[in-house]
């Protein structure tokens, strides 16, 4: 990547998101300027996943914008990989493990090009990296939760992106899979990729992430993990519960309904 040193890889500028009329994320300013393992930490309902979805244009943004490599997403889509939460898809869907990983290549293949030998080899290599090569032909519903999450990880690898956004990749995952997933994420970081991970477990967050952002309906703090995860910041994130913001959000929603 030959980017100017001043150009952030990802920049959230004054991002505000609302579901319906109710704002759930207020005025987030956040710039990440170097490859690292970046954790987005906060309580349930804090808007962590929403932050990722807003960056990807999956939820409408009320105000502000997000840039990747200084550009709007539409111009650099292929360089940004996204892994949604595992529960968001139907795992009884009639596809094999290999089929799902191959989907990672569909975005750049376009309408008519079929995945060829290169794509198949790549999918296989990605499955090997997450330790699932021997399950390639299996229907995805017949995997454990941890294996399913690793299939998603392999699909993201097959996209060969420069920035990865993971939504709760460790949720409902056994310890062995967690270690495997973390090892792959660390490999990505070491290969110069930026890896952003929404995560809810504070204990592991402190040891896994180079940098973190604490989020609770607004950005509480961001920076190197040791500097951010202070008792004071955690207190502001978890104990404060942003009650004022929540109430304000409800008020805005109510207003909209009666007017």
């Amino acid at each position, binding site marked *: 990547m030959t980017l100017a040193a001043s150009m952030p890889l990802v920049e959230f500028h004054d991002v505000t998101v609302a579901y319906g009329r109710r704002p759930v994320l207020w005025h987030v300013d956040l710039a990440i300027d170097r490859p690292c393992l970046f954790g987005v930490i906060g309580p349930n309902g804090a808007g962590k996943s929403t932050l990722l*979805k807003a960056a*990807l*244009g*999956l939820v409408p943004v009320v105000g502000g914008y997000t840039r990747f490599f200084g550009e709007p997403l539409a111009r650099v*889509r*292929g360089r*940004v*990989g*996204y*892994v*949604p939460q595992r529960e*968001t*898809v*139907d795992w009884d*869907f*009639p*596809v*094999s493990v290999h*089929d*799902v990983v191959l*989907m*990672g290549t*569909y*975005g750049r*293949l376009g*309408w*008519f090009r*079929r*995945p060829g030998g290169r794509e198949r080899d790549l999918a296989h290599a990605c499955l090997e990296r997450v330790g699932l090569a021997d399950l390639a032909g299996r*229907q995805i519903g017949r995997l454990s939760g941890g294996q399913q999450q690793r299939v998603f990880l392999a*699909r993201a690898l097959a*996209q060969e992106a420069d920035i990865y*956004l993971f939504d709760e990749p460790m949720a409902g995952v056994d310890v062995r899979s967690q270690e495997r997933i973390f090892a792959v994420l660390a490999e990505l970081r070491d290969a110069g990729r930026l890896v952003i991970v929404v995560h809810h477990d504070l204990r592991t967050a402190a040891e896994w992430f180079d940098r973190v952002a604490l989020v609770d309906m607004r950005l509480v703090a961001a920076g190197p993990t040791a500097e951010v995860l202070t008792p004071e910041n955690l207190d502001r994130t978890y104990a404060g519960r942003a009650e004022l913001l929540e109430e304000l959000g409800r008020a805005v929603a109510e207003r909209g309904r009666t007017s």
Partner: protein
Amino acid sequence: MASDASLTVHAWAMATAAMVSASCGLVGGLLVVRRMSLLGDAIAHAVLPGIAVAVLAGGSLGGPAVFAGAVAAALATVWLTQAIHAGVGLAEDAGAGVVFTSLFALGVVIVTLAASRIDLDPECVLFGILELAAFDRVRVGGLLVPRAFVTAVVVFLGVAGGLAASWRWQVFTAFDPAAARAAGIPVGLVTSLLLAATAVAAVAGFEAVGAVLVVAMLVVPAATAELLVQRMHWLVVVAVGVAIAAACGGYALAWRWNTSAAGMIAVVLGGCYAVAVLMAPGDGILARAIARLRLEWRVAREDCLARIWRACEAEGRDAAHVGDPQTWLERMAGLWLERRGVVRRKNGCVTLSDHGRREAEMVVRSHRLWEAWLGRHAELPIDHLHPPAEWLEHHVGAAMRDQIEAELSAGQVDPHGRTIPPEAAG
């Protein structure tokens, strides 16, 4: 005996039904895996006002204007349903229910009002005109072919072409719409294409079998295929196969019994689904019943062997007096084992062959290892140990036994103080 002419008529009608059914089965595959069957139902009904208006405006049935009207009506249905969901907060299924019934009713009203002026009557809207399809013919390359058949073929090619061109994106979108969108796939366009294909297939089905039964064609073949296969491309292949087979079979039966072809096709489709539920490999009722019976039979055999082994252990010799079996299955198992020479009777006592003894030892070994493991690691009181071990002893393999033994580290004795038999050699 049917005359040649009537045979030709029926053959054409059957071919038309098969073609229409194939189109519906094709789009149905994607609708069913996307959990959008209800939307398919809604579209199949809601296309009626589109058709009616197009016909009123001078379009002919099966002509491009009618298909355009139907697609417009289908997209309007989806758009209205989502608008009601977003605007008023009505659940999406209820919203679809409101929209498609209203639109269908509107269509019925238009058709009834204009019945004298247009070539479309309510009877044909509800039940189709498959039986009459063969009489309205057009000339294709020197051959007189029913217009409905030509339409059905064109529709099938169009639907198959549209879905084939977008196939990978269709599957990605169906499986994980959020990731597909993030990867730059035009999810909205891909979905609209599927909805348009549904509308087109529904119009063809509408003409052939009517508004009510076209739903069966959309949903049942794919639902049947979903039970039978686990890959998307096979699902579509099987769905189309079932659709064609049911259409031909249903039509032939209707002809034989002189009843409604549309009705018979739907009945045959329902029968196909029932057979799939019963016979599906792995998860089918029959497969599960067989698997359960085999398990129970193995458990009965193992229980029988273990009981004799324990009695021998208690009496300290190779043969022992053993009480009556507790279940009829175990009694059967005992007789079976005796006939095969695994269990032998001698002077009122029972004894085991070498092979039988080894098998019994492994069951007892599993049982006692698990009791020991539970006693040590789960710290359960001693009267809690027997029931789970009694159940688990039939499900633990050699590798698992070794692992349990390794975790026990100390002693070859179970919590009741009885010896745990060693693993069988080989």
